[in-house]
């Protein structure tokens, strides 16, 4: 049923979705206090698409994102990232996958406080022991409008600059998917628009894939496709 399944380290497959979940279930807690966060979710995200996942608080949208990104394990079902089945991947492989194939933008605390903006930007490269592509880096910095602020610490940047820096960092590694978890949650509407436009550009100009969790309809309006979640299921 999934012809592209379970083929790790296979970058040749281009028609495979960037990420997919098949009948994924996730529960927290035990006994009567148990909460079913994901209840048999099946969804796929096409490469080069901009998808917004919407839903009320507690609908499981953030959990879905975490499971798709390999940050959290699933109780049943399968998660594919760029054609690779995440189930049963050893910790080291999972780390490498996150480093090389996934970009993250969280609601807050995206940046390492003790490092400068430039150092934060290059951190995934440094961790991988790779040299960044200089031309690409310059392009990303320019697109993010951060040229003047690279020597500053995150605390010295505005909220919008911090979030744009996080998106830029995700872009530098050219990941298979960028997962954004309420990226505008802490921003005012004007700054939000700037960030959302930047994400849109990442898709349109740089051909990136973006999956964004949000409960803001305005933010969702920037996406190509909107998925609604209610009570742990895709409606």
């Amino acid at each position, binding site marked *: 049923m999934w012809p592209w399944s379970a083929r790790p380290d296979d970058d040749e497959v281009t028609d495979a979705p960037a990420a997919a979940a098949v009948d994924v279930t996730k529960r927290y807690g035990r006994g009567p206090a148990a909460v079913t966060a994901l209840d048999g979710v099946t969804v796929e995200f096409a490469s080069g698409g901009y998808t917004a996942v919407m839903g009320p608080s507690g609908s499981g949208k*953030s959990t879905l994102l975490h499971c798709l990104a390999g*940050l*959290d394990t699933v109780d049943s079902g399968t998660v594919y990232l760029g054609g690779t089945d995440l189930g049963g991947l050893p910790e080291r492989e999972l*780390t490498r996958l*996150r480093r090389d194939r996934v970009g993250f933008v969280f609601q807050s605390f995206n940046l*390492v406080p003790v*490092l400068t903006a430039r*150092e934060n930007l290059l951190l995934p490269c440094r961790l991988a022991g790779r040299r960044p592509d200089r031309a690409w880096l310059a392009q990303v910095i320019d697109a993010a409008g951060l040229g003047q602020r690279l020597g500053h610490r995150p605390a010295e940047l505005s909220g919008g600059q911090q979030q744009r820096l996080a998106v830029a960092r995700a872009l530098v590694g050219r990941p298979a998917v960028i997962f954004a978890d309420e990226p505008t949650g*802490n921003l005012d509407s004007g700054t939000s628009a700037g960030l959302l436009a930047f994400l849109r550009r990442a898709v349109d100009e740089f051909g990136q894939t973006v999956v964004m969790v949000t409960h803001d309809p305005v933010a969702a309006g920037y996406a190509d496709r909107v998925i609604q979640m209610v009570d742990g299921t895709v409606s």
Partner: protein
Amino acid sequence: MIRWTVRGLAARWWRAAMTSLAAVVGVAMVSGTLMVSDTADALGVHDPNLDIVRIVMLLAGGVALLVGAFTVNLTVSVTVAQRTRELGLLRCLGADVRQVRRAVMLEGLVVGVLGSAVGLVGGYGVATALRAFINTSVFPGDLPGQSFVVSARTVLAALVVGCVVTVVSGLGPARRAGRVPPIAALRDLPRRTGGRHRIRTAIGVLCTATGIAAVPLAVATAAGPALLVGTVATLVGVRLLGPTVTTPLARIVGPPLARTGGVAGTLGWHNAVRNPERTAATATALMIGVALLTLVNVLFASTRAPMAAEHARDRADFELSAPVGDDEWGTPLSPDLERQLRELPEVATVVPVRCWTDKGSEDRLCGADPAVLSRVMDLDVVEGSVADVTAGGIGVNEASAAAGGWTIGTPLTFQGHTFTVRAIYRSLYTFSEFLISGADLDQLDTEPIALYVEGERGAVDRVVAAYPGVEVRDRDQRLGRELDQMSGAAAVYRTLTGLATLVGLFGVVNILALSIVERRREVGLLRAVGMQRRQVRTMIRAEAMTVVFVGTTLGLGLGLMYGWAAARVLEHSSMPTRFAVPVLAIALSTAVIEAAGLAAAALPARWAARIDVLRAIATE
């Protein structure tokens, strides 16, 4: 990742500094001792007293390093706990377990290098203080010169010692850091509370049991080394048992803190109790210093008591001699002085201690006639009889007899003269020379070195006035001198163990500051609902008091127990002891530690009180 570590340290520079300080004290003591001993070697000074100082200092340095290691371990652990989100973020961005682990270990290494460097400079200070101590009259030794030899070995030893301590202390936290999952960047993970290692508890029980069992064993067999092993085993055991021991103790202070500090006091106490592992770690680090300090206090009091009793055996009103430097019996006295004193009607008894000096080797044989000496001193003869010490006979003190393997009848030869041991007596603090018959003393070419006199002070002083350099010491002065020497030594040991306690207090400050950082929002919330700044300070102080109370109580208990055992073991040694509790000294040092704990809490308490309410609540 190197940058992450270094910047992290720089961002929390005061914490890194406090952590380094934990290593600094130990490194300074060790490197200072090495400098002194290298200098002594370079100058060709060979003094057994110096060896004792070296051993004591290295032991004390080791203790300080041990306590320092505990403090470093604690601080790095809490830093890791606090940076959990940051560690999670790094893992999200692709840092693997080893990279995270290495970054934390590097933190230990940097702290170690810094601590070693500062410790080395401090070591020069320690060496200077040591030399001053060695050259004082209290200590029978001499180390001339102005500068010290700082050998490559000393520098290397300081670096290795400092780094090994901090890196090893950082191993555990580094492993824990490696276990932080990436998801920790997004959610507050429930802190793992339970899951205490059963093996750790088992080893703790085993160590404590062994240590406590060593007490009756050592007392029964008078085995000092067993006691030493027992002390270390108990300290380590209690440390490993941690909360099992400390939490019940911490509960005791709840009600009094609630009475004195109100809600703020109770909250502070709760903060200490709800973090049992951390409280235990901080309190047991403090415990080590306090236990050793108490041990030293008890041991010196126990030595002092029999000393005073011993002193009652010397009944002579005055002791006359001409001291030179540290040497009480420096130069010989004029025979005229002895004769003039004998002629005085106000003087009842004059007992000379006479010395015969070999012109070639400068060797000195000193003794007094037991027949007259026993009039002013209780000689307490163990074997033989003073009456047998006639011409050709000699009396020796018990310690020398034991050391030389002499018994009644052993012939002793001194520069061609042979004497036979006829009596063995217990030496006094003021007299431990030979007992030689008056006939022999007169026959030998002897000069009086000291005179024991009974009579009126005024008359004696009038005669002595004509002999410059001669000192008259009454009984109180003689006792005072002995006790002064004791107090000097006691002060040194108190300082050394006090330093270990100080390192423990660094831990208390660290832990308070860290818990404030962790509970920013909580403090903000409390302030928002109406807690005064003063009450915030009270809360932090209550937390400090709980930790300090647990640490000092454990330390006092163990210190008294092992002090008692050590006093019992040493009862029959060359320096007999009788168990005594120096209530005043212990109460004083406890009060000082508690006050220092409160003072240590002052700075973190101020920080907590200054937390901006709005920002503390707003930050996610």
